[in-house]
């Protein structure tokens, strides 16, 4: 089932952790991702870059099993998660952690209960052991002593840290981040970037980050993928991306505005058509 795993086990960094093959995802009639394919290596930090509406968030949701692809393959831990039962998917989910954009902490539970939830749900550990793991995880994200706070009492950056602690609770092999620095001021955002770097160095974790923040992307990434209109435009190391001459990559990295789209015209056109065919 695996892909050239046996030869690569010695050199961990060349072993593929996730392989996407011709991945297509649609919402109803509309296809969002048109055949995505790339590999994520064990222990690397891969940043998925892309503008709003590029499909990068859909790609992330598909990777963690929240969306079902319409075709293609996602190989993760030797299994094609595009075609497995929900029971098998749940087993894989216990090995991955996901930090959502807004944190997605449960508002009715304390920070401690949030972080301990996966442990209480999926393990038969004693309460005292869970307490120790909880302290450890909060310590890792710099939130020691906050276990009895409610999420509403935390600032945006602290919420994100707590969410990371929850994602780390089950000691995942792969960690996913959705827009880790969205909505944070530059200093707090830099702190979250620092946290991602620490996790990578300390645990040699495979980390996949979706973002459009260039500064943060170049700081944390080993490799980058640029997604545009549901296709992979470019993939490579940070240096390769920096020196790329691909027009789309240059436009994204040099922050060149899209030529004005004649949306007003479309809107007016739509109105006149409405007039011509009333009631449509």
């Amino acid at each position, binding site marked *: 089932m695996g892909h050239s795993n046996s030869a690569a086990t010695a050199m961990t960094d060349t072993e593929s952790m996730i392989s996407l093959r011709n991945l297509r995802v649609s919402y109803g009639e509309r296809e969002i991702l048109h055949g995505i394919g790339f590999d994520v290596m064990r222990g690397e930090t891969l940043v998925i870059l892309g503008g709003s509406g590029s499909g990068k968030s859909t790609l992330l*949701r598909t990777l*963690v*099993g*929240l969306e079902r692809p319409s075709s293609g393959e996602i190989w993760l831990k030797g299994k094609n998660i595009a075609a497995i039962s929900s029971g098998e*998917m*749940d*087993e894989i*989910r*216990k090995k*991955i952690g*996901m930090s*959502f*954009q*807004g944190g*997605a*902490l*449960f*508002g009715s539970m304390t920070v401690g209960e949030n972080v301990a*939830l*996966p442990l209480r*749900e*999926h393990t038969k550990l004693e309460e005292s052991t869970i307490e120790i793991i909880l302290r450890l995880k909060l310590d890792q994200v710099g939130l020691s002593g906050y276990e009895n706070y409610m999420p509403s009492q935390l600032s945006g950056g602290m919420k994100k840290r707590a969410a990371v602690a*929850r994602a780390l609770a*089950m000691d995942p092999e792969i960690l996913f981040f959705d827009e880790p620095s969205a909505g944070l001021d530059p200093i707090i955002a830099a702190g979250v970037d620092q946290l991602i770097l620490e996790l990578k160095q300390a645990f040699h974790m495979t980390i996949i980050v979706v973002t459009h923040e260039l500064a943060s992307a170049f700081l944390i990434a080993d490799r980058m993928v640029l997604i545009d209109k549901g296709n992979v435009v470019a993939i490579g190391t940070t240096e390769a991306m920096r020196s790329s001459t691909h027009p789309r990559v240059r436009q994204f990295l040099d922050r060149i505005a899209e030529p004005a789209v004649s949306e007003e015209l479309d809107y007016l056109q739509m109105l006149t058509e409405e007039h011509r065919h009333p009631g449509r």
Partner: protein
Amino acid sequence: MELTTQIGESVTDGLAYLGALTTLGTRAAYFTFIAPLRGKPLRLQRAISQAMQTGVGALPILSLITFFIGLILALQSAYELRKFGAINFVASAVAISMTRELGPLITAIVVIGRSGSAFAAEIGTMKVTEEIDALETMAIDPIHFLVAPKFTAMIVMLPCLTIWANSMGILGGALFGVTQADFTWFRYIQASLDALFLRDITTGLVKSVMFGITITAVGCHEGLSTGAGAEQVGRSTTRAVVVSIFLVILVDLVFTALFFFMSER
């Protein structure tokens, strides 16, 4: 669009909606009754706190409303019974209409307003803030985690509330009986109990369990199908209330008809 197409579409939409409710209800019932036997314990603590909110929290307002309803029923039936000199039948009129119909129905409507809407708002907000997605990525089934405790709480608390509502309604009727007819409190209660058959009470309770399932399924389904954005939560909440009231009355009709034809034999 042609009329027939429109009718056809709304019928299929309606059936699809009922199908979704049935699926959700069945899954919640599975996690409540069968999964605990297979080593997936029910979240009893969550169910109990839900039962406190849904059940105990509703007692004051429900008591007041059903007391008034009992009083109104007594006044309305006395208006007619008085003409035949049969004012003493007020007790049985109130007792029977409360236990068979109004007790379960009023209870359901109060619970829709308090809890059905709250289910949709709570789950809808969790959907918008990606908390439902977070549950799924942690391999925790949202139906097991969120819906099943509510389901358990509702099917236990609705019959309890209904019994309470019945008693308060009878008490409301008794206030009229004691002040306006020649009843003493004891004789009024005695007359009410004499008028009731066990079947009157049990049919009401069976209906209340069905109402509980309906309200939970609609509230949670509306919550789970909330789209993106805060205004969608409001929309889901409104829909949960409107659809629940409609479906509770539909279920009421079906079961009342069922009991009617069953008792004929």
